[in-house]
C-alpha cells in the first residue's frame, strides 16, 4: 500500500506518454504533456513526505514538531507556475503550425516527413 504514490506517478507518466503518441490533435497533445508534468510533482512530494508530520509552516506549531521536506515543496511550487507559461509557449508553436499547414493533425505536417 505504501507503494501507491510511486505507482500513481508511474501510471500518470505512461498514460500521458501514450496520449502524446496516439494524439490526433496538436492541442490535445500539449494537454497530455501537462499530465506527464503532474507525475513528476506527485513523485517529488511523495519522496518528501514523513508519516505523522505536518506542513513546514511554523506560524502556529511548536518548533520541535516534525515537518515534511521544504526543499521538494520549493522545487515543485516554482515548477508548477513556470510550466504553465511553457505550455503557453507550446500552444503558440501550435498556432504557428496551424497557420503554416492549415491543420492540427500531427500526421499531416507533411514538411516533417523525410
Amino acid at each position: 500500500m505504501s507503494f501507491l504514490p510511486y505507482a500513481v506517478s508511474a501510471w500518470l507518466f505512461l498514460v500521458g506518454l501514450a496520449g502524446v503518441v496516439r494524439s490526433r490533435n496538436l492541442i490535445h497533445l500539449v494537454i497530455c504533456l501537462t499530465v506527464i508534468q503532474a507525475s513528476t510533482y506527485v513523485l517529488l512530494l511523495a519522496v518528501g513526505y514523513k508519516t505523522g508530520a505536518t506542513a513546514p509552516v511554523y506560524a502556529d506549531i511548536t518548533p520541535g514538531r516534525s515537518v515534511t521536506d521544504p526543499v521538494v515543496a520549493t522545487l515543485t511550487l516554482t515548477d508548477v507556475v513556470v510550466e504553465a507559461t511553457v505550455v503557453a509557449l507550446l500552444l503558440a508553436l501550435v498556432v504557428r503550425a496551424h497557420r503554416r499547414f492549415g491543420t492540427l493533425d500531427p500526421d499531416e505536417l507533411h514538411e516533417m516527413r523525410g
Partner: protein
Amino acid sequence: MTAVQAAALIAVAIGGTAVVATKDPPRQALVAGIFGFALGILFFAFQAPDVALSEIVVGSVALPAMIFVAISKVRRQAETGETDD
C-alpha cells in the same frame, strides 16, 4: 498512508486517464481543470499547502484560460482562411 491520501491518489490517477481519453480540446480543457483541482487536494493531503495553492490556481484558472484562448485563436485563423504558402 491515510484514507484521504489513498482516495486522492486514486482520483488523480482516474483524472489523468480522463484527460488523455478526452479527444475534443475544449472539453479536455475543462477536464484538465478538474484534474488540477484533484491534484491540489492530493498536495494538501501530502502536507504541502504552498504547492496545493500553486496547483489549484494554475491548474484550474491559468491553464484552462490559456488553452481556451489558443483554441479561439486557431478557430479565428481557420475562419479567415490564412495559411502560408
